[in-house]
């Protein structure tokens, strides 16, 4: 069936044949019979840009591959590529286990989490999802199934490889034990960017999970003022609670929202409120869902940006390049860029994925509605500053980067290409993102 697909940002739709295999055998058949325009796997469509689109080609909806097993003695999950982290959490949290890494939404698949090598609030301690993967079962271009382990050259090409080495049929990864389903969260407000950076650098190591929300519309002395949230799993000794997890969406975004709803005025008001309602310093106890996935409480929140959609811009610059970070925050603030949710985080070591995004440094993520004047030029300027500082832009969120920036941002690109070309000489695995960035 030909279907128009977009990423979570709802920009640049393209048509593709959409097939939904229910077994690995069916998956292999579909890959072997893929058309000239190639094939790419798709999970729950949470990549913001065009990573899981393939104009004129085949897209495999992998959510039908949804079986998994858990070995309590080793803490290892073996899951099909289409299993969602939501399903895993729902089953595992009551048994006292949690996924090793959770991004800002739990509605991502295991295959997508590995292909984008997703990170969470614990990156400074636990690295990204790929670092916890013990093996990957990959359907490669010849339609055969290969099992990859960390020593295999194709393993680091697949972790963070955006689905371009093959389709992840199954993976085994380690989970972490938890005693309750509660989080003890330290909330702290900072007055400006310097205080934000200094506080995070000084206190991050005390917590497993940390993140800062930045009010990007605050200018002058208050530029970069933030609300820091830092948390740890609550132990049974602290709270007598048996772990439980059954969150649903509380609200549903309307099927249609007018463009421009999230504009300078409404976002400024929201930011002001969000900053002011945060206590100067306070410790609270929260559930897992409100701490990790606050946006999941609004089903289809991406629709609130209207029909033109939005782009997410996330970059990382290495430690020592704080001036680049300050410069970009300053430009955004001066330009009056409307970003509803701007998040700052300190990264620890990467996972070894050749095209993985995280590296030790500072990462900033913004959500920007499409249609703001001069946005393309502004972001292209940021690309150059980020690349010059030795940083990079996150491909799973990207929908607009130019191909000529890739080599500077991803120094392992050529090595990745060699491994990919060997595994897929005809370039069968292709996506709109791959075409746009000439991967």
């Amino acid at each position, binding site marked *: 069936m030909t279907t*128009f697909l977009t990423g979570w*940002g709802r*920009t*640049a*739709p*393209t*048509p*593709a044949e959409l097939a939904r295999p229910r077994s690995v055998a069916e998956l292999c058949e579909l890959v072997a019979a893929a058309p000239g*325009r190639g094939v790419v796997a798709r999970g729950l469509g949470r990549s913001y*840009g*065009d990573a899981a689109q393939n*104009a*004129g*080609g085949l897209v495999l909806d992998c959510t039908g591959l949804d079986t998994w097993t858990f070995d309590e003695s080793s803490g290892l999950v073996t899951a099909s590529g289409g299993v969602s982290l939501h399903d895993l959490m729902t089953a595992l949290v009551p048994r006292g286990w949690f996924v090793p890494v959770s991004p800002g939404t739990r509605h991502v698949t295991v295959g997508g989490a590995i292909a984008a090598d997703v990170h969470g609030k614990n990156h400074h301690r636990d690295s990204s999802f790929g670092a916890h993967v013990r093996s990957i079962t990959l359907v490669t271009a010849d339609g055969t199934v290969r099992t990859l382990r960390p020593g295999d050259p194709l393993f680091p090409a697949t972790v963070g490889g955006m689905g371009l080495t093959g389709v992840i049929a199954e993976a085994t990864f380690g989970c972490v034990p938890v005693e309750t389903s509660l989080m003890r969260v330290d909330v702290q407000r900072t007055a400006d960017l310097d205080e934000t950076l200094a506080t995070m650098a000084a206190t991050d190591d005390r917590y497993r999970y940390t993140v800062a929300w930045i009010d990007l519309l605050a200018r002058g002395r208050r530029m970069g003022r933030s609300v820091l949230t830092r948390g740890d799993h609550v132990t049974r000794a602290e709270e007598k609670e048996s772990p439980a997890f059954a969150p649903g969406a509380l609200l549903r975004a309307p099927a249609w929202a007018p463009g421009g709803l999230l504009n300078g005025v409404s976002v400024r008001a929201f930011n002001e409120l969000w900053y002011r309602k945060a206590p100067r310093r306070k410790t609270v106890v929260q559930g897992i869902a409100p701490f990790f996935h606050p946006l999941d409480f609004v089903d289809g929140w991406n629709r609130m940006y209207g029909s033109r*959609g939005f*782009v997410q811009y996330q970059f990382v610059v290495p430690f020592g390049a704080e001036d680049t970070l300050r410069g970009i925050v300053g430009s955004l603030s001066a330009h009056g860029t409307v970003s509803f949710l701007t998040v700052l985080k300190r990264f620890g070591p990467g996972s070894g994925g050749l095209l993985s995004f995280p590296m030790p440094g500072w990462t900033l993520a913004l959500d920007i509605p*499409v249609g703001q004047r001069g*946005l*393309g030029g502004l*972001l*292209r300027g940021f690309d150059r500053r980020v690349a010059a500082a030795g940083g990079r832009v996150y491909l799973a969120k990207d*929908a*607009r980067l*130019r*191909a*000529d920036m890739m080599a500077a941002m991803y120094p392992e690109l050529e090595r990745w290409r060699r491994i990919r070309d060997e595994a897929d000489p005809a370039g069968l695995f292709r996506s*709109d993102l791959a*075409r*746009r960035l*000439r991967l």
Partner: protein
Amino acid sequence: MKNALGAVDTVLLLGGRSEIGLEIVRLLVGLGASRVVLAVRGGFDPPELGGAEVHVVPFDALDVQGHGAVFAKAAELVGDLDVVISAFGVLGSQAGYDADPAAAAEAVAVNYGAHVSVGLHAARVLREQGHGTLVVLSSVAGARVRKANFVYGSAKAGLDGFAQGLGDALHGSGAKVLIVRPGFVIGRMTKGLTPAPMSSTPRQVAVATVGALREGRSSVWVPRALGPAFGLLRLLPRPLWRRLPR
């Protein structure tokens, strides 16, 4: 691929010397396009286009048998074609055509027939890609044909109708057609002629075209006021229409 902000990467310009065509390409390069193919007749020294990679491919509008090869070559050079601009054409004078009917037929073959061939080749390529826009340079001359240039105008009328039909045929395929309808354009093609009311420059046509491309529109009048103006002029009774000065 067109990105989330509407910028494109690759452009094929058929009629690589066209002033309007080159202005459109310059603007697209300024917005992020990095690879350009100019399809032109005869020897040609390509202009510098904002640092983009520029290729030249031989193209003769009247050699319709060779059109397929032009598209094949362009795809080989730059891969997917994000924007194809069909910008070649000849104006000529009505008096000249009156005196030389064979020249009139040849001009129509360039201004209409060759565009049909190019349009169908482009449609096939863009449909297979599942994305991309064909930009067709139509004209108000075709919106209602005037006695002062009815050979040129009738070819543009045919082209406009073809482009509308092609756009409808491509609906749902991911590929699109953008019809650009400028009024009098002050440029090389109209040198020596007195500008008509609501005339524009190649630059203005290019700005309007690129704006329409980014918005994904199917047609644009340049200037915009020509749209409603011709909505009314089309209703003008013929005895009045033929008495208009030009």
